[in-house]
């Protein structure tokens, strides 16, 4: 896959504070990349450097072949940016439509296609009936949707979205996620998503990077990261009869599980090399006359990975 964003030893310092510290990262074209970290971890600063708004103190970023230091105008013309607090960044003295038209022209969207593009975005984001109103009259959710439309007005190759669903209600967040998902389906647009909402990353991202105190601490697919941080896998089993105690003893007697416990109507056990050991446990239970209804893995969510990587738990 072609590299879309390439960061090498990226560092940004403000006076004595090192906000971004030697970050090296490749994001592939067409990927939805989640950039996770707590507040003040360096997520937004990284995005601002990538968007040519801040000059790196050291290192480089190349976006779709353009160097942010050497070719800032070219970089800005192919990227879309939803800044932090994007909802409050509109011109209240212009209507929503005029806001999009203004930015469309600044981004050199051809006049013959601009009107259609604006209508398409407003339609998709369900803003058409309010297009002639000032953003000042919008709710935070509507303003955020308008910001997203603005960041996509020129159909950018790379889109940086800084906390796209922060301050949105669940329904609005879902709609925005659907929008990003639909846009990403084409596979030609790269999305760089800064967030601390792990559910958003789970739902959207192909890969994630964890940043803490300016340093990139982990990068990988959510599934890979779970595997990496959980060598012991947890399973739960549900049986038709209520003889949980006996079933637990059978599992323990196989000597395959690291731990066995009863939680409500289920038996929960942890083990390594589940692929080879699970069939043996199932066989032992069946041979003892137990009827299994369900056996399933308890997959740790990204929140747990986040706690381990960032929180050191």
């Amino acid at each position, binding site marked *: 896959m072609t590299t879309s964003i390439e960061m090498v030893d990226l560092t940004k310092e403000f006076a004595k504070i090192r906000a971004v510290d030697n970050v090296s990262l490749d994001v592939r074209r067409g990927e939805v990349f989640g950039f996770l970290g707590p507040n003040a971890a360096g997520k937004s600063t990284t995005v601002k450097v990538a968007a040519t708004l801040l000059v790196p103190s050291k290192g480089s970023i190349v976006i779709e072949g353009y160097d942010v230091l050497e070719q800032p*105008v070219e970089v800005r013309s192919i990227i879309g940016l939803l800044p932090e607090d994007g909802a409050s960044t509109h011109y209240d003295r212009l209507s929503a439509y005029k806001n999009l038209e203004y930015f469309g022209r600044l981004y050199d969207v051809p006049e013959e296609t601009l009107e259609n593009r604006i209508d398409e975005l407003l339609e998709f984001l369900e803003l058409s009936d309010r297009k002639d109103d000032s953003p000042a009259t919008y709710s935070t959710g509507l303003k955020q949707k308008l910001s997203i439309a603005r960041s996509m007005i020129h159909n950018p190759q790379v889109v940086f979205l800084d906390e796209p669903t922060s301050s949105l209600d669940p329904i609005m967040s879902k709609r925005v996620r659907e929008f990003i998902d639909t846009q990403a389906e084409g596979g030609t647009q790269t999305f760089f998503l800064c967030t601390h909402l792990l559910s958003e990353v789970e739902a959207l991202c192909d890969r994630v990077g964890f940043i803490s105190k300016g340093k990139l601490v982990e990068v990988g697919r959510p599934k890979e990261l779970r595997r990496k941080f959980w060598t012991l896998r947890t399973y739960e089993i549900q049986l038709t009869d209520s003889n949980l105690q006996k079933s637990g003893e059978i599992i323990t007697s196989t000597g395959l599980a690291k731990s066995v416990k009863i939680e409500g109507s289920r038996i929960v056990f942890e083990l390594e090399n589940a692929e080879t050991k699970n069939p043996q446990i199932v066989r032992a239970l069946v041979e003892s006359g137990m009827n299994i209804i369900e056996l399933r893995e308890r997959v740790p969510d990204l929140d747990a990975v986040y706690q381990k990587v960032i929180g050191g738990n």
Partner: protein
Amino acid sequence: MWKKAWFMAQTEMRMVFKSRQVRMIPIIVVIMSVAFGGIMTWLMLSSGGIDAALFSVTLGSIMGAVVIMLPLMLPILIAADSIVGEKERHTLVPLLATPLTDGELLLGKFLTAMIPGLLVAYGNLALAVLVVNGVVFFMAPQFLWVWPDLLSLVQAIILPILFAILAVGLMVIISGRANTVYEAYQTGGILILPAMVFAYSGFLLGLGWLIFVIGSIIILFVDFILFRIALRLFNRDPLITRTG
């Protein structure tokens, strides 16, 4: 470069004129100039026995200051609203994220502040000329035409441009440090107006074309230096860093 800067300026001009504060200034300028010109002319003619040449020079000096200085309030306020206002209203980041170059951005801001200022200056000049000469026509028709003479007219056309560039250049520099429109406008007023009065005092001496030409060249040179400084300061990293 001009195309985008001009488009940006057109949109921004429409926006700044939605500010009541900005809309009030042309009205205040016109009322003050016309009233001042009419009353001064009437008072001078009422005192009687005035010499035509002295009348013309005195009136020209006073009205020259009024028609050149007063309209400068507008570019100063618009520059503050257009540059610091972007920071105050959080609209700066999306604008800086567009492919506009620093030069296009700065030129757009200059045009936004200067064009309305110059239109008001010239409109105000025309009205003041009509009022002053109208009063003269009714009170002392023997004087025919007292103001402006050719030098005053050229001054009233050229100097607003030179002073507006100077004012907006200074405002760009001030705006980098100011956090509110009010703060920028106040600082701008304090710094710019005395400088204008000082600069203009050379033209009030009535030393004629040579002083005007030399003075204009000096102001033009200062304008050029200020524009260069503004261009150096008006770039993304410091603007974003100071905005936070």
